[in-house]
């Protein structure tokens, strides 16, 4: 057996002449600070959290400067999951970008698919059928619920509560079953197409979803009773990580982060899409801008999503048998039987598969209310089938940028709680 020698570098910056670890004198606000005048009491400590760490919700690296247990500064480092999505999108047809969107915000894949289809349809000037619109609303609200369930479960774990994670993930499994029966995949659904959807909902989907809507609020009530008046939860989340409304607007926050600070901006209400202005639902607005308000906002959003789902299901009943794809053969593939037998259909099929659907010259930005905030897709087209530029406006990226501000003067354990409350997903941040 050979021996193994491995040199492991120290994580402290270096050793000085006495063999003591030398500290990097940091702290802009402190007076002149010299390394040789140190005594332990006045030194600041550097802690590196991540990029591999259970509580960073993905591969995020936080470099924290600590004065004892109090945080002086937090510097987030991202890019550990940068995959080149936007570059890759320039090499793909619009329909081929749909699978890429699953993998950016992988906690709410169907909502991203829908946003992409909407943005491309805005660019191409296509309007979808009514049944397709209602089904997309169903997809978006299911995604909202599954994303918030992950958030609540993992935030509970970060703050020490393990059980609700299991309850909420079980509810996610029920929705995953529905997603799987509809699209064939639990997570990477790719369910939207330009001008329509990949497939209509199968038999039993509506019954399953109705059953879910009937029983899911009970789990939410149980989780509510676990957290909302829990002394530990309140102690750790109330008054922590506060950001005011005007600051939140200036930092371009969106979604529950913004609404918990009292700003009434929900894309579904302010710039409605998919007919959201015809649904009856409320948007919870917080008041203090702390972690507790974000929790209350997201919890209430799940109840409201159930409300929207029930209304959508009622509409679907009236639209039984209606088409889900627009009747435009330049955009929607003709059924295979016709493509094999009819010349014109075969040519349309050939053109779409080989050349892709061409978008007119122009550009379009479309924002939707994703569970994490305002997700926007910005397409610039030069008349070909592949976009010149596909920009993803990532809500978590912009929300995470205010982490240093939120963490001024808090304790180290609060950093974990605040990071959890922003609800980030690194796939979207790093793209």
């Amino acid at each position, binding site marked *: 057996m050979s021996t*193994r020698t*491995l040199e492991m570098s120290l994580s402290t910056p270096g050793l000085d002449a006495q063999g003591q670890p030398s500290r990097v004198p940091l702290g802009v606000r402190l007076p002149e600070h010299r390394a040789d005048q140190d005594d332990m009491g006045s030194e600041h400590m550097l802690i590196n959290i991540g990029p591999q760490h*259970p509580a960073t919700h993905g591969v995020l690296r936080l470099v924290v400067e600590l004065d004892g247990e109090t945080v002086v500064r937090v510097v987030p480092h991202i890019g550990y999951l940068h*995959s080149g999505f936007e570059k890759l999108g320039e090499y*793909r047809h619009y329909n081929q970008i749909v699978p890429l969107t699953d993998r950016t915000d*992988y906690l709410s894949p169907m909502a991203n698919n829908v946003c992409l289809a909407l943005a491309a349809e805005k660019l191409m000037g296509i309007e979808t059928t009514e049944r397709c619109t209602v089904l997309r609303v169903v997809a978006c609200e299911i995604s909202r619920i599954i994303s918030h369930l992950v958030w609540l479960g993992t935030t509970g774990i970060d703050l020490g509560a393990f059980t609700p*994670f299991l309850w909420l*993930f079980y509810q996610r*499994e029920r929705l995953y079953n529905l997603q799987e029966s509809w699209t064939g995949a639990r997570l990477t659904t790719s369910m939207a197409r330009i001008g329509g959807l990949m497939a209509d909902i199968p038999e039993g989907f509506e019954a399953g979803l109705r059953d879910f809507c009937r029983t899911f609020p009970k789990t939410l009530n149980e989780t509510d009773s676990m957290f909302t008046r829990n002394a530990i939860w309140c102690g750790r989340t109330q008054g922590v990580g506060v950001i005011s409304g005007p600051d939140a607007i200036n930092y371009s926050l969106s979604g529950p982060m913004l609404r918990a600070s009292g700003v009434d901006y929900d894309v579904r209400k302010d710039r409605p899409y998919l007919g959201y202005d015809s649904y009856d639902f409320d948007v919870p607005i917080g008041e203090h801008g702390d972690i507790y308000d974000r929790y209350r906002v997201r919890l209430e959003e799940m109840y409201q999503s159930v409300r929207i789902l029930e209304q959508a299901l009622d509409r679907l009943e009236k639209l039984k048998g209606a088409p889900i794809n627009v009747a435009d053969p330049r955009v929607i593939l003709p059924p295979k039987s016709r493509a094999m037998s009819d010349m014109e259909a075969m040519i349309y099929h050939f053109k779409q598969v080989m050349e*892709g659907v061409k978008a007119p010259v122009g550009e379009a930005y479309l924002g939707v209310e994703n569970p994490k905030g305002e997700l926007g897709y910005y397409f610039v087209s030069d008349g070909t089938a592949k976009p010149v530029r596909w920009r993803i406006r990532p809500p978590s990226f912009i929300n995470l940028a205010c982490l240093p501000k939120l963490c001024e003067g808090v304790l180290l354990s609060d950093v974990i709680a605040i990071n959890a409350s922003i609800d980030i997903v690194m796939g979207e941040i790093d793209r």
Partner: protein
Amino acid sequence: MGLTLPEGGAGTEVSAMSPNWVTTRLDSLSNWARSNSLWSMPFGTACCAIEFMASAASRFDIARFGMERMSFSPRQADVLICAGRLPFKLAPVIRKIWDQMPQPKWSISMGACASSGGIFDTYTMVQGIDTIIPVDVYVPGCPPRPEGLIYGIRLLQKKIQGESFLDADLRQEHLLGPDGLFLPARKIDEVSEPFGNSVHQTRSA
């Protein structure tokens, strides 16, 4: 150390002892213990990490297979499960974590991106973590279903059960070579070549 194989190829080093009833019993005892108590180091990066979490949750429950405790410290882990895509920025991190894990250790590459780069044949993505660390089991899928991951874990358990402590090169630590690479450069380029249509996915490039 690097990748140096014994003269006759891998697995040809014969130890002083030849297998007998005692060694096989000892092997089977230690392999039984190791395979049924694998503590994973979940190196979860992207979507596969979510399916990994779903495997750990109550419906699929990998605790049934001994993976009771996710060990987030590599010092206490047995198997590194790389769940998700690995960009180059994260490559030194996974190498360091792998080096920090004590023997006996195994690794599972979960998902298409960890196994081969997946759909990301781009400037940022490592085309398979086996160019950085040795991999025991590859679990295909994008993401693999929890059943798929469990099958991969079971395969690893079978692999462990086939091990023997008489194998001299079994617990060898595969360190980076003198050029700072795990695999030879030519090999990395060979396995990372764009195959088929990974850049343009239609003929109308």
